[in-house]
């Protein structure tokens, strides 16, 4: 659990880097700090493991203020992933992964077992890469080692600074997918910095959008899209809005407007209420046919036009409460 309360930080020249930042991230939750360069998101992240000291405000990790905790032990209990991976060039893959467990004085056998299991989970070949040096690996493999290193001592908290930023688009998607499917992530408190909007929507339970050191809005992807608190927030997603909205909306969200359609034949593919509108649209386009959706209380069969109709209805309704958004 991480909590920031009214945190301020200025640069050496007196310019504010972070102003009055407060948020809370619960165990098992992933918060994405989203923003352009210079928005203060990395500064915010680095204050949590005390790589930067705040000028004022309070930061708590697991209920305790960070500045009262012994600095090395605080950091050893926080996983840290960097954009440029920061692997030690003079350490082998296994030695890199074992850095924090070694600092924590785990016994050799335990470190070895942990390294093996992490490498398998992250699809790194133990036979090929265990004794390899980072320079001998591809960018994607290096980043996987970086992830494994951060997870090695099974920390409760994971800080990630643009963890996929240095990878090419194809590799980025695959590493991201692996990261998301890691069972280890689900009981951790994760804070991730990124400027990549799709990445933020894909990985974040909640997103904290920052600009010029100030939090503009913190909320779920749906909240940010459909209930933006100001023009900055609504304009920020302008370019990709349609795609983001379809992705963010679950089928459950538009259920009220789907009507009571007759159940389809048994052999038709079935989606669940938790799937996104985008996934339903993809299915229908690929099959050129309507799809079945199994909600908890009913089974419906919809085609493209019905889906889009419900989508529009949803937007009209939420726009009635929230601020106006430009139509996509």
């Amino acid at each position, binding site marked *: 659990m991480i909590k920031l309360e009214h945190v301020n930080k200025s640069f050496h020249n007196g310019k504010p880097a972070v102003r009055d930042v407060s948020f809370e991230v619960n165990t098992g939750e992933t918060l994405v700090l989203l923003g352009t360069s210079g928005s203060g998101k990395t500064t915010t992240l680095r204050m949590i493991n005390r*790589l930067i000291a705040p000028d004022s405000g309070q930061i708590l990790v697991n209920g305790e203020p960070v500045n009262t905790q012994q600095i090395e032990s605080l*950091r050893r209990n926080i996983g840290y992933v960097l954009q440029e*991976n*920061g692997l*030690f*060039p003079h350490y082998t893959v296994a030695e890199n992964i074992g850095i924090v467990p070694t600092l924590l004085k785990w016994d050799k056998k335990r470190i070895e077992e942990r390294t093996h299991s992490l490498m398998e989970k992250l699809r790194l070949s133990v036979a090929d890469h265990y004794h390899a040096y980072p320079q001998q690996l591809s960018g994607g493999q290096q980043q996987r080692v970086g992830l494994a290193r951060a997870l090695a001592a099974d920390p409760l908290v994971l800080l990630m600074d643009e963890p996929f930023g240095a990878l090419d688009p194809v590799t980025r998607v695959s590493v991201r997918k692996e990261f998301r499917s890691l069972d280890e992530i689900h009981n951790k408190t994760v804070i991730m910095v990124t400027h990549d909007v799709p990445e933020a929507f894909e990985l974040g339970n909640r997103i904290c959008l920052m600009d010029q050191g100030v939090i503009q809005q913190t909320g779920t992807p749906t909240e940010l899209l459909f209930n933006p608190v100001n023009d900055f927030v609504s304009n920020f997603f302008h370019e990709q809005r349609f795609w983001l909205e379809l992705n963010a909306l679950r089928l459950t969200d538009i259920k009220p407007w789907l009507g009571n359609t007759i159940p389809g034949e048994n052999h038709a593919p079935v989606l669940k209420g938790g799937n996104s509108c985008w996934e339903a649209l993809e299915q229908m386009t690929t099959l050129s046919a309507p799809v079945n959706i199994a909600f908890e209380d009913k089974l419906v069969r919809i085609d493209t036009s019905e889906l889009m109709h419900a989508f529009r209805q949803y937007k009209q309704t939420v726009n009635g409460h929230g601020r106006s958004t430009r139509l996509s």
Partner: protein
Amino acid sequence: MEDQPGFPEFVQQQAGKLLEQTLQHIGLTFISLLIAVVIGVPLGILITRRKKLAGIVLGIAGVLQTIPSIALLGFMIPLLGIGAKPAIMALFLYALLPIIRNTYTGILQVDPVVIDAATGMGMSKRQLLYKVQLPLAMPVLLAGIRTATVINVGVATLAAYIAAGGLGEFIFGGIALNNTNMILAGAIPAALLAIIFDWAVARLQKLRMQKVKTALYLLPFLLLILSSFYLLPAAYGTSLVAGFTPEFMGRKDGNLGLKQVYGLKMRTVVISDMIMYKAAYEKTLDVISGSTTDGRVKAFDLQSLTDDKHIFPPYYAAPIVRQETLDKYPELAPALNKLSGIINDSVMTELNYRVDYLKQDPAVVASDFLKAKGLLQAAKHGTKGPVVIGAKIFGDGYILANMYKLLVNGYTELEAITKTGLGGTKICFDALTNGQIDLYPEYSGTGLLVILKADKSVVDTLVSDKQKVYDYVSREFMQRYHIRWLPPIGFNNTYALMMRRQQAADLHITSISDLKEYLLHH
């Protein structure tokens, strides 16, 4: 006349000494290197953390580096005396800059992302230094050690000037004695050492980073072992310590004669003529190879030991002149001969005393003396010539060259130029035969033993009679080199073993044989 033996024979004959000098050389190099690493690496680390200090520390180390090595050795003598201490100190100061600088840049060039990752993972400053910064800075740091090693191997040759031993003993002895084999016997091993160490450290640099860790732990031990080489040769010793010049060490009428004729065995260090007398006065040395007319003999109250077995031939000084020059300017010889027979031993010692110890200008001393003797005439500002007068680097030479200049300018229409400070006998004599100088004052004994390299049998028949020596060298020089010996000036500047007057009296030593007896029983 005997031919110089070939280089392999020389090395074979001198194998023991060569090994001793090589070991001393390695020892000197690595003791100072070890100290430089022990001090320079932490200092380099410190200035990566206190950046304000970096400029000052690197600046001071840089200035030290620019001091000429021989001068740096000179500065050390008043502070640390002679021997190993000042030599190691000077070498240490030279090795410091490359080691500090490379530690500093090596650590600064470590990828900041790696440092950030290490810090973020919870490494303490100490762990960061030992596990990340030093291993990653190691190739650059080793490059600094490599530079320092090569510099030290080179500069260590100069240690022979201040009685610290090393391969410089052969090099400077060889230059003084006109013995190419001896120069090579010192220079080749010195060059080989530099190449071997350079190669060895280069290999170390190229090792995989993992293995560097092991190398890092091995390095101090290796340095310690190599350093200990210096102590090996010094293991034997006697109650009295002798300091001889490189030239004296290799001469038949020097240390070789002392060993053969007197059977004198004592702990001997090699030392430059410039600091030898003072070292005796300051009790760092007990016996030195002085020259009888040196001003410092008077200044430091030293006593010559009687050469009761006559190994030191007479060294009567006389101007030696190219016959070509004499033929061209017949008026030259009479002008030069005005000095003949005028200066005896005590006069020369007095003149040297004024120059060496009272630091008076040799030109002033020369002109005062000629005036007192009524020989000084105003310069005629002649336009003929010029006649170039050379002199060796010793006091005698400076004063005599200045007197000859005044005489030539005063009594002839020739214009005289002096070219003093021409190193040793070899350099001076080569300049004369090549026509770069026309004359210089030389000693009959040097002519006999160093230039003509006369046979032992010839030397034995001549050595007790000063006239015979003079006649022999006059004849041989004219025949072989077409160079004329003019009549002797009068004083006999021969070698002598010298001790502090007080100590000689206390130990009842008046002759070299007494010294040998004393050493046998103490």
